[in-house]
């Protein structure tokens, strides 16, 4: 079967298509490269500012920093702490940053800053915890806890309903005496959550106190919010310790877990931590690029984005050329449009990108018409070929200059962009058009000229679509799709569209 060229080409293009699509799908779904040009991604910058007065002796300050963050991924983090040694490390409650300094005086300010973005693929991947040991509480707390656990247990079916019932009891405005005893006077949300973990432990349900922030808009002084995490035997469940509602709000950024305080210090006083949150939009491309660095490591360097910006800009144009070539191949071999030259039309279309379409067509026609007129005069001088084409080229350059100066005087700015036309191509077009004009008549010459302009215009439109520009640049593997299409057109043996007109006599005769 592989002997058959048609089948071989078909299989080859299918393979190219599959590889191209697979690579694109991977980059889109896994690495998060956007398929559409405009979508913007939001990133949040969360800053923890630690202020304190340096006390006697060396300073050692421990601050919890985000580690496991369900629903979010950390794009970047940094510590601003002049003169301090800073070491992040994993500890039982998550991650911790330790700042240390031998000597310091006066007010000190240390900053930790993290840039995070939403990443739904990140989940709490903690393993199933062991059953907690039953806490030993001094009397009368032990009895109060036992009674409460007993009562809540009788009104619930599973860890989830137990937790909800418990939180309902703890939050009830008119508290019964057991709850009152356990919570103490004027409890806040942290007290409630902390008491809940103790009581859940008494019921042999693993539970953790979480602390985090809501990421929303701009907050100068964001509050740490407690949350409750309960294991139901198969997975972790989240509860709002105040309302008892289950679930984790999707803008909740987990900062640390466990009963410990956010920050602890040796050698300092008047410790204060302030959180601020700000959101900003980020180019999704840059975000995806950072993410692919995280996913692929050094492989991510084998990317267009690893190139210098100027080179990238060059490639953003070069990558469009095959698309233009595809349009030309389609129009010539499937539609049957007649043109002067083939791929030089792509270069004319690239020039249209600078001049805009209407001006491009206008200026191109103007230059070719003027050049053609002068070319007919040159013909009468009987010149040798190379100097003659050179003369046409010189005339084209002079005409370009004239058009630029004139349009500048008339304050028609687009006329200036005529300088971006590929003049050698203009000269060759004029030369070939004049030959066709003489040998086959003006009709053929004009028809092919209009065909060329039409093809160049369609090329320009295809290459100028924001979407195609974005797609070939962000997914250069789309060139494999273009290659596949090219191969398929290369084996297209059906009629060209205009041949249906050309052979119309057959149809007319058939009807007679």
């Amino acid at each position: 079967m592989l002997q058959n060229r048609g089948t071989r080409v078909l299989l080859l293009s299918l393979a190219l298509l599959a590889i191209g699509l697979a690579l694109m799908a991977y980059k889109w779904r896994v690495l998060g490269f956007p398929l559409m040009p405009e979508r913007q991604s939001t990133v949040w910058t969360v800053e923890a500012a630690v202020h304190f007065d340096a006390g006697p002796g060396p300073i050692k300050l421990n601050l919890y920093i985000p580690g496991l963050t369900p629903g979010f991924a950390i794009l970047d983090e940094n510590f601003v702490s002049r003169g301090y040694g800073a070491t992040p490390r994993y500890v039982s409650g998550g991650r911790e940053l330790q700042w240390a300094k031998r000597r310091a005086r006066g007010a000190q300010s240390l900053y930790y800053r993290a840039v995070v973005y939403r990443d739904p693929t990140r989940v709490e991947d903690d393993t199933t915890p062991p059953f907690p040991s039953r806490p030993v509480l001094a009397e009368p707390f032990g009895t109060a806890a036992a009674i409460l656990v007993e009562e809540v247990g009788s009104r619930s079916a599973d860890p989830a309903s137990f937790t909800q019932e418990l939180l309902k009891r703890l939050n009830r405005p008119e508290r019964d005496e057991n709850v009152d005893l356990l919570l103490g006077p004027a409890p806040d949300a942290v007290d409630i959550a902390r008491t809940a973990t103790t009581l859940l432990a008494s019921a042999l349900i693993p539970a953790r106190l979480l602390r985090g922030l809501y990421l929303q808009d701009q907050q100068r002084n964001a509050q740490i919010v407690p949350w409750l995490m309960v294991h139901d035997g198969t997975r972790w469940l989240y509860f709002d310790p105040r309302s008892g509602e289950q679930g984790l709000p999707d803008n909740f950024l987990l900062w640390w877990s466990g009963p410990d305080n956010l920050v602890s210090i040796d050698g300092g006083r008047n410790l204060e931590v302030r959180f601020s949150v700000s959101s900003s939009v980020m180019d999704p491309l840059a975000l995806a690029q950072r993410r692919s660095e995280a996913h692929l490591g050094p492989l991510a360097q084998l990317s267009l984005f690893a190139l210098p910006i100027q080179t990238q800009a060059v490639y953003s144009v070069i990558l469009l050329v095959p698309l233009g070539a595809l349009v030309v191949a389609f129009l010539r071999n499937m539609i049957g449009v007649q043109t002067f030259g083939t791929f030089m039309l792509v270069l004319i279309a690239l020039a249209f990108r600078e001049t805009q379409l209407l001006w491009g067509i206008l200026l191109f026609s103007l230059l070719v018409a003027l050049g053609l007129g002068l070319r007919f005069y040159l013909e009468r001088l009987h010149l040798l070929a190379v100097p003659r084409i050179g003369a046409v080229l010189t005339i084209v350059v002079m005409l370009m200059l004239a058009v630029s100066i004139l349009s500048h005087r008339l304050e028609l700015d687009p006329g200036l962009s005529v300088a971006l036309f590929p003049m050698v191509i203009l000269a060759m077009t004029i030369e070939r058009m004049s030959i066709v004009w003489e040998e086959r008549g003006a009709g053929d010459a004009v028809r092919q000229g209009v065909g060329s302009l039409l093809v160049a215009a369609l090329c320009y439109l295809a290459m100028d679509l924001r979407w195609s520009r974005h797609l070939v640049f962000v997914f250069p593997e789309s060139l494999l799709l273009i290659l596949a299409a090219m191969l398929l057109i290369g084996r297209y043996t059906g009629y060209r569209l205009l041949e249906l007109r050309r052979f119309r006599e057959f149809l007319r005769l058939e009807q007679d």
Partner: protein
Amino acid sequence: MPGRVRRLRARGVLGINARNIEFVQRYNPRSRYPLVDDKLRTKRLALAAGIAVPELYGVMSTPHDTARLAELVAGRDAFVIKPAHGSGGDGILVIAGRPARREGQFRLLDGGQINEAELRFHATNIISGRYSLGGHRDQAIIEYCVQPDPVFAGVSDRGVPDVRVLVFRGYPVLAMLRLPTRESRGKANLHQGAIGVGIDLLTGCTTHAVHHDTAIDEHPDTGLPVSGLEVPHWSQLLELAAGCYELTGLGYLGVDLVLDRRHGPLILELNARPGLNIQIANRVGLRRRLARLAGAADDRPVAERLARLAERLG
């Protein structure tokens, strides 16, 4: 539109893409192209094989050679200058004669005159590659100007009518008579406005005609009917055309022949990518005839092939 495609297909009309992929690329080895793309080589090849071609008066390969032009055409009243690598009839200049009393002047087909300097300029243009396919340097050929057999005088305007025979693997499959018109300025190329008249391969009689892709029955200039004419020396023409298969090794070949008043049938040039209008002129789609011959190659001599022609065409 899908209906049109279906109906054209039912008529067996061959399109350009299918011609290129299924026939030209498949049956014409690239290495043989130079034999037909270079008219000088074709001519020499034909002469070596004893096939009649218009006599070669001279070749000019450099602009300097054009100085010899007058010398090369000395004593010749009529002659043709053409590029060795031209395509589609471009660059062919026919000198029909010399005006009686004016030295160094040449008469064109349309009655106009040009002088020797202009003629040399045309040759220089040819040499510099103006009419050649890739713009490469070329050679200018000067050859005998065919004096057409008067049989077509009523149906052609000046110029030389020629016969195009499409030969597939040694068998003629379609033929047409190409008649110059006023519009085509003496040239026999259909896209320049000449008319194509289908020829019944077995009888040599003309059938229908096409002018610019449109079916016609009368010559647009003279108004005379173009069908029902008998092409003289028909079997000899077919024999010459079919023999070009052996000559070139090209399986899909267009052979252009002319009927000269004195020398009879001559081979003018060969074409490895012959056009498809021959189908309209004959009102016959090519596919069925080509399909019948697409089987095993057949190495019978020309005469035997032609004897079997009726049977092979179906």
